[in-house]
């Protein structure tokens, strides 16, 4: 009677070990966009992209993300300041640039935003991001 739950437990732990070891075979690049967002953006734009009142604009369900698609790679690399309108609300804060992110990291970050939290927009290829970054002399080709 006691051996059955024990055996189940053993099988369970075996599965768990297998799952963990399998996980280590794959890179975490798949979630890189979400991780980069958490590390570089969430402190201001919120952990769910909600923004902060009228101080920091949201990136979740944001018309700006769809309408300014081509400008976003440079915006991330170089930062921005001055008045902007997101979902009809005016914001005016300084956003620092992120020269520390590579072209491919910016691609993954923006693809995460373009396809999550109510945004259903077209993704970028790394090549496209690099081309768009060329507009602000911001491409590092990586």
């Amino acid at each position: 009677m006691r051996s059955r739950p024990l055996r189940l437990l053993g099988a369970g732990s075996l599965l768990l070990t297998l799952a963990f070891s399998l996980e280590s075979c794959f890179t975490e690049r798949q979630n890189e966009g979400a991780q980069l967002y958490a590390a570089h953006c969430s402190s201001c734009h919120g952990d769910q992209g909600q923004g902060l009142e009228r101080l920091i604009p949201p990136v979740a369900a944001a018309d700006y993300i769809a309408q300014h698609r081509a400008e976003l790679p440079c915006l991330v690399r170089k930062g921005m300041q001055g008045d902007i309108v997101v979902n009809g609300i005016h914001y005016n804060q300084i956003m620092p640039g992120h020269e520390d992110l590579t072209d491919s990291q910016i691609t993954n970050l923006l693809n995460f935003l373009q396809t999550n939290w109510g945004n259903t927009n077209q993704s970028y290829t790394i090549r496209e991001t690099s081309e768009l970054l060329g507009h602000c002399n911001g491409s590092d080709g990586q």
Partner: protein
Amino acid sequence: MTTSLRRASLLLAAAGAALSCSLGGCSAPTDTPADRLSVYGIKHSEPTSPADTLPDPIPAFRLTDQDRQVITNQTFAGKIYVTDFFFATCPSICPKMQSELLRVYKAFEANPNVLFLSHTIDPAHDSIPVLRDYAERLGIKDASRWHFATAPRDSVFALAKAYMTGAEVDATVPGGFAHSGTFALVDSRRRVRGVYDGMVPEQVDQLIKDIPVLLKEEAAEAQPVAAK
């Protein structure tokens, strides 16, 4: 008949209370609020007697808020307040920190005995209009409840130390100022009664739990001794 019944129920209640107390001792609940908050701070002054062990109170200060009102210790007389240090163009921790403080503000919005005081550590940029704009964008319409205040930088940095947080000029960090996201809870006798990391939601939750504890203590002390 009724008295014996009442006595019996009293006895039962007492037994129940005793049981729950002893049971509580076993599981050691961590969420039981302390009935009195500790006093924090540093003692710089010479003790006046062996019993004089309390830290120095928050020093006298004179600030100006977003409504151009002069803010001094007297502004907070008979109130408790939560304070932090920020600057309007802060690109790193401030938005997160201020959104957490906003959460505390909203929890006690209806209680005029709880005030808020945010000091700018960049007075050169954060003029009164900048502070007013910041407060309004954050949704704070009543400056008397949440002051966004400025003062010469050295006085602000000195105050930061008194509130047990750090603020200093540092050209190597984004924005040019290094500071921590600490919230300090201050009682009506100018003593720090709690220090919380404004970047950690669990610590901010603790602040929200501690404020009623301090309010209760303040209310008890406000009553004349003879009434006790």
